[in-house]
């Protein structure tokens, strides 16, 4: 049919049905990169989104990922729909990675795993499940937490409240506040915990503190709900970074765990992760899995293959798995180096005697600088350094060469603004 441009059809509606739709604000995290792109200054530095950069400040695809993709190309497999629960080999690999392949709960068939759309998608599926089957339950989230957590639970219509976490006075963990708030919450609440490398603060409980948390959670019959986005990326060791989760599972508790391969395998855009529910018995896991599927089907039907196959190929081949671990250690190592250099620069340049050691004690991709909103704005407006307004900087976006410039900016913003 030709578009004649001159069509005698009346009855088109003139007024827009969407006239009243307001302009939404930009996403506080992803919006930072957009603003960064628009900045023309040579000095600009993007410490916004948590995507790993090399020392040359370039994005990088892991060598082992490139290898896996070439292998997949050679194999020439088809692109048929995955089952709703995702790629079986991936699901097995991801549960093994998280819990340890020898974990009794896996052998007993007590883990319900669904491949999902990275961390966000896993959290959203779990939230939808909570809304449907635990309609009276609340999720407890740390103050602060990743900005999107609240959006996820809001959209899923799951009520949430915060537990104390970050103590600005010490730039450390307010453990007593955390315990008190979790204890005070109604029995059967879901407690959202960051498995390692807390986002945005970088502050993690110690092993002893994890034990105490498990005590309280068990006592209050709360459901532990882990968000694991940095396994292997925080310390460089996959097992060490999963120890908090494994501690809870070992106690015999039922646990929710959302996993992401965005950072540790650099698969950001492929949206690969999983929601795992460790249940008391295999037939429980079967039922839970079946109901998670019923939530996934009307959301996206079945998950995307590409990222899942990459993970399965890497984890399934001992050589590639070893290479992956090495590359992950390198990434974690670079971040530690950058933390050290930043700390050194700050300590050298700052005459005020402020204690900057939190830069070293925080772990993972992010550092919570303690800068407030106007100070963060100053970082951007005056220094062209892009970060989120809660004072979080992504060390993955920093290199040794820029540490001194960043230190200058932080010192200026901290001391001269507000």
């Amino acid at each position: 049919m030709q578009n004649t441009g001159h069509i005698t059809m009346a009855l088109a509606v003139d007024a827009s049905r969407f006239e009243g739709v307001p302009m939404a604000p930009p996403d506080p995290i992803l919006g930072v990169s957009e603003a960064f792109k628009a900045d023309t200054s040579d000095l600009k530095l993007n410490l916004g989104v948590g995507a790993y950069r090399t020392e040359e400040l370039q994005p990088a695809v892991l060598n082992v990922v490139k290898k896996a993709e070439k292998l997949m190309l050679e194999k020439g497999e088809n692109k048929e729909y995955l089952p709703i629960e995702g790629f079986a080999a991936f699901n097995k690999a991801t549960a093994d990675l998280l819990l340890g392949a020898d974990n009794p709960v896996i052998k007993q068939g007590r883990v319900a795993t669904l491949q999902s759309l990275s961390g966000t998608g896993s959290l959203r599926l779990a939230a939808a499940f909570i809304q449907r089957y635990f309609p009276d339950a609340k999720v407890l989230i740390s103050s602060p937490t990743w900005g999107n957590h609240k959006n996820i639970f809001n959209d899923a219509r799951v009520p949430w409240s915060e537990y104390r976490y970050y103590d600005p006075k010490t730039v450390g963990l307010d453990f007593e506040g955390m315990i008190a708030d979790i204890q005070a919450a109604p029995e059967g609440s879901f407690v959202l915990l960051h498995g390692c490398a807390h986002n945005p603060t970088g502050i993690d409980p110690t092993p002893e503190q994890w034990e105490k948390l498990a005590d309280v959670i068990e006592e209050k019959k709360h459901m532990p709900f882990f968000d694991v986005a940095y396994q292997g990326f925080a310390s460089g060791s996959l097992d060490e970074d999963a120890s908090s989760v494994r501690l809870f599972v070992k106690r015999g508790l039922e646990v929710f765990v959302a996993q992401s391969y965005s950072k540790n395998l650099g698969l950001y855009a492929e949206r690969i992760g999983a929601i795992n529910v460790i249940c008391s018995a295999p037939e429980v896991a079967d039922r839970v899995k079946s109901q998670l599927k019923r939530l996934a089907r009307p959301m996206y039907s079945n998950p995307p293959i590409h990222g899942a196959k990459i993970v399965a190929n890497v984890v399934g081949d001992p050589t590639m798995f070893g290479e992956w671990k090495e590359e992950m250690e390198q990434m974690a190592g670079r971040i530690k180096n950058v933390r050290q250099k930043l700390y050194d620069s700050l300590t050298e340049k700052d005459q005020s005697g402020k204690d900057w050691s939190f830069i070293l004690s925080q772990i993972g991709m992010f550092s919570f600088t303690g800068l407030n909103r106007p100070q963060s704005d100053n970082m951007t407006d005056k220094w062209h350094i892009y970060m989120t307004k809660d004072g979080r900087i992504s060390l993955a976006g920093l290199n040794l060469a820029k540490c001194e410039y960043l230190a200058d900016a932080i010192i200026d913003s901290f001391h001269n603004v507000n």
Partner: protein
Amino acid sequence: RTQRPHAGALRSPRPRPSIPPTAARGTHPRRSYGPAHPSRAAMPTANVRAAQPSADRRLSTLVRHLLPSSPRTSAATATSADSSLQPFPTMASPSVFAGIAQGPEDPILGVTVAYNKDPSPVKVNLGVGAYRTEEGKPMVLNVVRRAEQMLIQNESRVKEYLPITGLADFNKLSAKLIFGADSPAIQENRVATVQCLSGTGSLRVGGEFLARHYHERTIYIPQPTWGNHPKVFTLAGLTARSYRYYDPATRGLDFQGLLEDLSSAPSGAIVLLHACAHNPTGVDPTLEQWEQIRQLMRSKALLPFFDSAYQGFASGSLDKDAQSVRMFVADGGELLMAQSYAKNMGLYGERVGALSIVCGSADIAVKVESQLKLVIRPMYSNPPLHGASIVATILKDSAMFDEWTLELKAMADRIISMREQLFNALKIRETPGDWSHIIKQIGMFTFTGLNSDQVAFMRQEYHIYMTSDGRISMAGLSSRTVPHLADAIHAAVTKLK
């Protein structure tokens, strides 16, 4: 000067921050957010289940007979051999999931599950709509393989997060594909397009957007429609009602019923329209009928929501299969469009699609896009890269685009040929009934008109798998299997009524 702590200190016990006295603070969590829960007398999907015909329940029973009787056999064998395993650790309390029932298999995807379990050598899967070659094999298009090769061999490509709205090139090219490159809506920047997870994801995001920003919460869906439609829209926050569509007496369109039902819909209601190759019936309105539908809908300010899963696959022509949509865009009005590349590019498992909203003005389109981002971010943050990159690569290269149209036409032609072969096979067997709908219906599916008893019979006796509504996927047929299917249909209609 004190020694500076070294980064290595990260691994050793960290200096504990001194915990300030907390006397000043209360022990209650600081903030609480609790949207008033609407009273939930029934789960949303309970309504859908109640609406399912008893045939589905019989089908589920039948399926259960086909499944191995002992669940978790793998776990059982694992535990029996391994003496080092501990018994279940003592649970602090019984499972909180005790009250959760086993969910039924998805009626469509469950067909493949059952098919896979069947050991019969003559089994045929006519359930899910995935294209099969003449040899019965899944197929990846040559042009898709080439595009994938180019992408993977490109050393400079990265896997950075896409924007929330997805790959920009992909979005622009997708809008052009469905609306036409010269579409005034595109030229006037009135189209907001976001990359989504295939058709399902596009429908869900569109539905959520409407539930939040549109004044009417009712969506009218054709009777019958793809089984997942009501669930998608219900979970998105809309109320699904149906309009008459299929006439079992004629095995064609109940046009009068359609017009009546849309006429009595409240002004502003949303109406789901299958752009072409209606699923499951294969019955499409003629262009003249589309024009009448368009006029009626515009006169009542009904909002069109198109589902386009088969562009190019139905007739073999991309433009022809988009005519219905373009007719609505041409009158200057607004609409939603969910696009899928699962079938026409064979990208099923990559989950590639797009949601476009044609708005009254460019300003509105900008705002609409910003609100779509708020729907997407808490759902999955941003869409997957791989499939969209493949599509963009093909659409932007004219040689690859042409190659694609040829492969697409070949798939569509093979399906048309299967229709002819099946029709002829039934004629030769003198199977009672009028089977001309097999060659009249369009697209991947044929709504056979078989009832659920006959469907169950064909599964049991002939190992032919289809959905219980009698829908068969022609894409799953080959010259080799047509005779078997014809035999099965013949037996079913002569033995069961």
